[in-house]
């Protein structure tokens, strides 16, 4: 393997602006080889831009780093040979069949037996019998499968997946993640951006990015611990009223409804408890102190980062 130091992606201080607007700000990250690295953040937070910088589709305004041991500025061509990039929008040819799309990719990467490689991939994807179907006519789940197949076809060392499971049903999503884990256990490094918390929890490491800033990173446990958030879960009557009353009180950093319960979180435990004290004794409310979920942490991070911009 290139680099050989166990780090697949190592970038420092990446900055990228479009039309005077800074989309990625001073972003540094390290991704270990063979790990699944989750990239989270709200829409427009700079996830896609970062991924495009990593695979050489965009040049950063400043910052440097390596991808698979190659310099992201100078060696974009070498990086492209070993990276599979799955775009957010389906970007294979809709008017080409499954087989033709795969053969096209195989030929571009110079596979010695393009037809054979495409045939094997069709079998592995479970697309046998559909190889002559046009890619544009496939359902969302099959399109996503085909796209993953196409970007793993040339046996890349790094996969960059940009919201691969958007608009895909839960069963297909689960299958997809099983495949990602299988690929990672074979030594492939995967960087995947997502909005789904359950997917984030299946990653070895995650990073949260908002408005171009990398706010936190680490394993799921580390991220939760780092947040130093205290969360109370409330169940009972008129939670909407309670939520409205608590919002903005000292120590209450976040109020979020979760189904039949309400999550009230804050970093300053004393202030939080003082603020909720008047409602603690009410007989129709049931209070329960819990550790925050990843979602609590992210919503709180998002709310906090918004204040800064």
């Amino acid at each position, binding site marked *: 393997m290139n680099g050989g130091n166990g780090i697949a992606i190592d970038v420092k201080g990446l900055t990228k602006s479009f039309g005077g607007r800074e989309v990625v700000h001073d972003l540094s990250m390290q991704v270990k080889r063979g790990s699944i690295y989750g990239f989270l953040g709200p829409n427009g937070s700079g996830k896609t831009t970062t991924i*495009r910088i990593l*695979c*050489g*589709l*965009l*040049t950063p305004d400043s910052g440097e780093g390596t991808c698979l041991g190659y310099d992201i500025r100078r060696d*974009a*061509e070498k990086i*492209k*040979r070993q*990276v599979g*990039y799955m*775009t957010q*929008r*389906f*970007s*294979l*040819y*809709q*008017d*080409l069949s499954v087989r*033709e799309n795969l*053969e*096209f*990719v*195989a*030929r*571009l*990467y*110079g*596979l*010695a*037996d*393009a037809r*054979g*490689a495409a045939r*094997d991939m069709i*079998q*592995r*994807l*479970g697309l046998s019998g559909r190889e002559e179907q*046009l890619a544009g006519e496939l359902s969302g789940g099959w399109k996503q499968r085909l796209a*993953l*197949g*196409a970007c*793993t076809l*040339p*046996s890349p060392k790094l996969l960059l997946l940009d919201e691969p499971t958007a608009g895909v049903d839960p069963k297909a999503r689960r*299958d997809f993640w*099983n*495949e990602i884990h*299988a*690929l990672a256990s*074979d030594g492939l490094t995967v960087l995947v951006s997502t909005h789904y918390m359950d997917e984030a929890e299946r990653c070895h490491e995650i990073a949260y990015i908002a408005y171009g800033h990398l706010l936190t990173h680490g394993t799921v446990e580390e991220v939760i611990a780092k947040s130093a958030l205290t969360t109370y879960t409330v169940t009972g009557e008129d939670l909407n009223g309670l939520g409205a009353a608590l919002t903005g009180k000292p120590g209450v950093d976040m109020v979020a409804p979760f189904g039949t319960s309400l999550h009230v979180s804050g970093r300053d435990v004393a202030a939080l408890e003082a603020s909720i004290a008047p409602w603690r004794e009410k007989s129709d409310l049931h209070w329960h102190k819990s550790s925050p979920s990843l979602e609590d942490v992210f919503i709180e991070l998002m709310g906090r980062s918004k204040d800064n911009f």
Partner: protein
Amino acid sequence: MSLSDQAAPTHEIRERFGFWKRSYAMLVKEFIQLKRDRVSFAMIVMLPVMQLLLFGYAINTTPHNMPSAVLLQEDSDLARSVLKALENTAYFRFIYEVHDVDDFDNLLKSGKVLFGVEIPRGFERAVRRGDRPALLVAADATDPIAASAALGSLGMVVQTALAHDLYIGNPPEMPFEIRAHARYNPAASSSLNIVPGLVGTILTMTMLIFTALSVTREVERGTMESLLSMPIKPVEVMFGKIIPYVLVGFVQAFLIIGIGVGLFGVPVLGNLFLLALLSTLFITTNLSIGYTISTVVQNQLQAVQMSMMVFLPSILLSGFMFPFAGMPAWAQYVGEALPLTHYLRIVRAIMLKGATMQNLRFDALALAILMLVAMTIAVTRFRRTLD
């Protein structure tokens, strides 16, 4: 079934001939897409056929049955005989017979007739005396092509028609003079080379549009993002996109020349192989220019608009529509920068004059230079990133 169920068969990557393999991958892809795009595919055949039939027949240099009037100032047998002969040429169809000069002029002026024949008083007697009286044929030459062709062939056809006339016999020269008068446009110019010119015009139009759309289409459909993330170089993309259309252009050229020869009786005096060779050069030049447009514009609409910006001057300043020599110097300079100008000279010279490579080397060289310039711009303009 999932990706993990089976061990991945490893496929070897070979770096040799990478350039050709990647260009080939692109070429195969473009061919398949072209094949799937039924409308475009139909256009490849329909466009030249329809244009040729429409242009070919509309700009017909040998029109028939043109509405005519006769100003009869003498009702003699000879006059009737001459009129009959004129009508037999199939050029003229006499729909008015007048006896007054003003009526005659008005018919021409109003456009009710395109031709007027005046048979003067004492015509028959003058012919018998051998005075060679004048037979005035007035033409509405606002349509110069129609007028000049009919006027040009007038003398011959009338003489032939009258050859066995009872009254005249078969004299060594015309017993009377035909005095043609091209009204409204005395300096009537006409293009006799419409069909060869159409080969170039149609090819310019279709080839420009096809490649002008090719890169923007990838951008608009979102496929450019994944194409750029793969290890393919701008030159390879360009070759892959141009080569399929060289074949398309060849088919079109073949169709147009075939119809031109078969239907319009245009000769091909020169070497067919030379014609094919230089046509291929011209096709590739246009494809390169279209491809360059494609790398400059933002979307498909702009691509079409910009193609028109090249196409329009090509039609007007290349010598297709107006004689090249008659244009002002600046227009001639612009014309020299257009591939169509050079190809028109080539195709007309080969088809109509039987020219050889020796005669055409300047124009062939000009085409090659234009092609290389366009390709260089395209490759440098092609954005390898999404910046």
